[in-house]
């Protein structure tokens, strides 16, 4: 372990000599080449450059930020580290990164859904057959009882997005917040251009309905 520090410093020096430029000046593709050769400094640069994008997508898809979203976002970057050797510079790096993110997020959401199903089975009263979940307060009701604050609108948008089906939510996020083209979204989700546009249309219609209370044009 004691040898790790000097060894790493030597490696960084060797890389700097080899490439002659600092990591922050490098493109994503060049950083990935460095990551493939085990350069942790390049990896740090890559994380810092894309962490908000990855964490934001994870948080939006999983219904909010927090330790779980953070863990999944870390998993995504660790997958990037492991797959750096197989990365080919065809198209934008962001498209590839978001494809990795999508796979990781959907895998985790699948696991969470299965776990939730088991939990739901556990909370049924064996004597009466009544579900304890039914007696829990509806989060929407809780929301209504809360005092209206400046964050109310933000929360309403978040809730409306969270209620969208997973694919629609992802398409809306990638288009609205990441500013990706429909073609890129198609590559990430593995869908045709028409399918992506149809999903986007349906998602917008649903959002319009859910947020109609905040839209003046609907009044």
């Amino acid at each position, binding site marked *: 372990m004691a040898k790790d520090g000097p060894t790493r410093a030597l490696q960084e020096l060797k890389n700097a000599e080899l490439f002659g430029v600092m990591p922050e000046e490098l493109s994503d593709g060049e950083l990935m080449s460095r990551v493939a050769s085990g350069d*942790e400094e390049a990896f740090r640069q890559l994380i810092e450059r894309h962490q908000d994008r990855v964490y*934001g997508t994870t948080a939006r898809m999983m219904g909010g930020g927090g330790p779980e979203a953070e863990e999944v976002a870390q998993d995504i970057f660790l997958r990037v580290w492991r797959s750096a050797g197989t990365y080919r510079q065809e198209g934008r790096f962001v498209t590839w990164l978001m494809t990795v993110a999508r796979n990781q997020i959907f895998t985790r959401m699948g696991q969470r859904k299965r776990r939730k199903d088991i939990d739901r089975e556990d909370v049924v009263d064996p004597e009466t057959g009544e579900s304890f979940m039914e007696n829990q307060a509806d989060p929407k009701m809780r929301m209504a009882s809360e005092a209206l604050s400046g964050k109310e609108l933000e929360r309403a*948008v*978040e809730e409306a997005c969270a209620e969208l089906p997973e694919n629609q939510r992802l398409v809306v996020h990638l288009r609205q917040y990441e500013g990706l083209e429909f073609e890129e979204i198609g590559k990430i989700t593995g869908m045709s251009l028409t399918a992506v546009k149809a999903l986007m249309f349906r998602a917008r219609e649903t959002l319009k309905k859910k947020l109609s209370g*905040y839209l003046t044009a609907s009044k």
Partner: protein
Amino acid sequence: MDKSRTSDQGKDQGMELEGLLAQAPPPQAPAWFAAKTLARLRQEKEEDRKTVSAWMKWRWVWAAGTAAVVAGWVLWNRPDPSVEISDAMVFAALDALVEQEEENRWWAGL
């Protein structure tokens, strides 16, 4: 209802919806995110290294065990030289059978 008015209303709603969504941006990564991710990477690398070194530590045991299993298999399947039967033994046995048969026939009065 006037068709053009409905279409305009739809456009207005679309614009407004974009505005609403823009007011609720997704959360940003915490400040410690990169450092924590790198720490996790180093931890995983260390665990991998430990697994490999554990294998290397016990490599003589694994090698000896494998050699013992192979040797046992070879010995078990080796042909046993003691059960080899010579031609002379076969003929002697046949002669004894013929002799026995003849004796039986004599005693039977045949």
